[in-house]
């Protein structure tokens, strides 16, 4: 399979647009009021620094596997383990965020049609995770082209929302701008940062992209640019129509509720709000699918590199999928869905994404130092300022994420450290004796030829 620039860009946009914006807008407005708009804009800036680093690494190191593969190339095993461990967790935790967002929006969708669905949202979230995990466990048919179509539908639905909303939006809703004080921007940025991290999925499919050394950097940067523009328009419309207070109250169904205020009726679909609610359901489920694949790929890559038990790095003989990696990821996702509240889930995912991005930026600096003659078809402009700013911004945002999230994060890291030590002591991971190498083809020496 080969992915065009459009397909590759859509892989990134598809992972970013949708779930994050639908689920997190209300929560961000709850923290910082109308200034949430600025939080999204600044996050776009912050993530661009790291996106540039990804672009350079992806153009220079032709390897599927994304950030983890680059870090593995640059650092010693324990650092790469931390990177893989946190990336893995980010995907899993994002999965539970999207599953919870799906559940709320699915109930909202029924509600618009006057149907009150039975049961707790958590049950729907669990059902979504189980269904997608089962699908991915049984078949690897996850086509990039299908992804492109799905993403275009998502953008179109948000486009309809923005087109109607721009006429209805009231700029007065943004006055006063900083209802919660300027410093509230930072926690809002921390919470929503997870919405800006999907482009690294492009880096996990690099080997399938046409003319990769040109198209991968372009796809990464384009997907960030398009996503930021769409986010800003959507958040502007949401705040401008529903107002910050009502939006904050709506939580993870904020966008759908905003749409109820101004969307006209459509034939067949009914109210315009139903279209948006459908968009939210659709987006969260496709994002959930993306992270189920993403998380199992990281676990799979770590298994292959012998950083997790080798079982995780194998395909199942019958289904042809990395079954063990998918199942292990699913268990963590299910636990997170049940026990962790949605805001903590968002914060945790953002914190680990920030940590991963710090390591990626540092990997870029270290690679430039240690391998100056490496071919870099794309180079980060204003080096070393850009990656250093990337690190500084990510650290700053991380510091403003609440202490409880940090405790959970440190807990997961310590757990990872324990797993690592245990596995390496048991000899389950780490370099495992001499690798299997074919014997060389013997060549007769001059003496042998003579006889």
């Amino acid at each position: 399979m080969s992915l065009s620039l459009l397909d590759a860009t859509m892989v990134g946009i598809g992972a970013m647009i949708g779930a994050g914006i639908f689920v997190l807008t209300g929560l961000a407005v709850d923290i910082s009021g109308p200034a949430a708009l600025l939080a999204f804009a600044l996050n776009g800036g912050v993530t661009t620094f790291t996106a540039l680093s990804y672009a350079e690494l992806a153009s220079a190191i032709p390897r599927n596997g994304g950030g983890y593969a680059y870090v593995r190339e640059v650092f010693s095993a324990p650092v790469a383990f931390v990177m893989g461990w946190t990336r893995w967790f980010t995907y899993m935790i994002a999965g539970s965020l999207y599953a919870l967002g799906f559940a709320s929006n699915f109930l909202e969708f029924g509600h618009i049609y006057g149907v009150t669905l039975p049961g707790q949202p958590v049950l729907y979230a669990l059902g979504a995770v189980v269904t997608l995990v089962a699908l991915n466990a049984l078949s690897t048919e996850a086509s990039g082209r299908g992804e492109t179509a799905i993403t275009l539908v998502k953008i179109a639905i948000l486009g309809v929302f923005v087109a109607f909303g721009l006429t209805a939006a009231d700029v007065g809703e943004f006055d006063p701008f900083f209802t919660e004080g300027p410093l509230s921007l930072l926690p809002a940025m921390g919470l929503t940062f997870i919405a800006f991290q999907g482009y690294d999925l492009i880096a996990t499919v690099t080997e399938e992209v046409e003319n990769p050394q040109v198209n991968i950097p372009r796809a990464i940067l384009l997907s960030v640019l398009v996503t930021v523009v769409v986010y800003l328009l959507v958040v502007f419309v949401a705040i401008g129509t529903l107002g910050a207070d009502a939006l904050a109250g709506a939580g993870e169904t904020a966008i759908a509720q905003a749409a109820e205020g101004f969307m006209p009726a459509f034939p067949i679909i009914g109210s315009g709000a139903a279209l948006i609610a459908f968009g939210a359901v659709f987006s969260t489920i496709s994002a959930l699918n993306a992270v189920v694949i993403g998380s199992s790929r990281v676990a799979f890559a770590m298994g292959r590199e012998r950083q997790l038990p080798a079982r995780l790095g194998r395909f199942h003989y019958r289904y042809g999928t990395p079954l063990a990696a998918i199942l292990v990821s699913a268990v963590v996702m299910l636990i997170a869905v049940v026990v962790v509240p949605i805001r903590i889930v968002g914060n945790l995912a953002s914190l680990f994404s920030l940590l991963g991005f710090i390591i990626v930026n540092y990997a870029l600096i270290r690679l430039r130092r240690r391998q100056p003659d490496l071919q870099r078809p794309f180079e980060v402009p204003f080096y070393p300022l850009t990656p250093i700013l990337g690190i500084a911004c990510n650290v700053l945002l991380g510091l403003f994420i609440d202490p409880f999230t940090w405790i959970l994060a440190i807990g997961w890291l310590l757990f990872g450290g324990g797993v690592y030590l245990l596995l390496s002591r048991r000899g389950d991971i780490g370099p495992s004796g001499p690798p299997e190498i074919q014997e060389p083809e013997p060549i007769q020496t001059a003496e042998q030829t003579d006889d």
Partner: protein
Amino acid sequence: MSESVTHDLRVIVAGGGEMGVRTAELLDDRGHDVVIVESDPDRCDELADRYIATIIEGDASRPATLRQAQPERSDVIAALTDDETTNFAICMAAQRMSDIRTVMRISETADELYEEFVDGLVFPERLGARAATNEIANGGVRTIEDIGGNVEVVEVEVADDAPVAGKRLDEVRLPRGSLIIVDYRGDRLGGPDTVLEPGHRYVLAVESNVADEVMNLFRG
């Protein structure tokens, strides 16, 4: 090998000529990670376009350049430039830097002492000669592989008037040192009831001292 888990290799290929690149491509297809070191800047651009390996621009026989390819993290170094002494120097330097398996390309008849210093030798001219022979003497015989010093795996077509044509294998006496591996349908190993149909191709392993005799039996 005691460890059954196949491990993806990290391989340094010194020399990004056609041979180096093709090697990198084949390794990449099998899932291994490759770093190519190539000194010509234009060639480096071409290689980067192919996106099969990490490219380091520079002369691999310079330790400073070789160091950037990280031999200490790699499993094998293959010195595949067209210069034998350069290749030898690269292998020696890499061995000094780390505990790495070395494979070098030779262009003359192998110096018998090479085996004391490097783990594997590749002699493209010799492999090329095999391919050339197959093309030139295209008379129903193709060498598939030189197994070792003495054994060849060949594919032979039974000629219409050959001595063995139409005979069952237990009726003919093939010389010691020859073995039919695969019958003409390509789906069964040769056995006593294998019939040597004229016009069909069989895969044989033959020791070089009986090759001539076997060819006579099959080709007439």
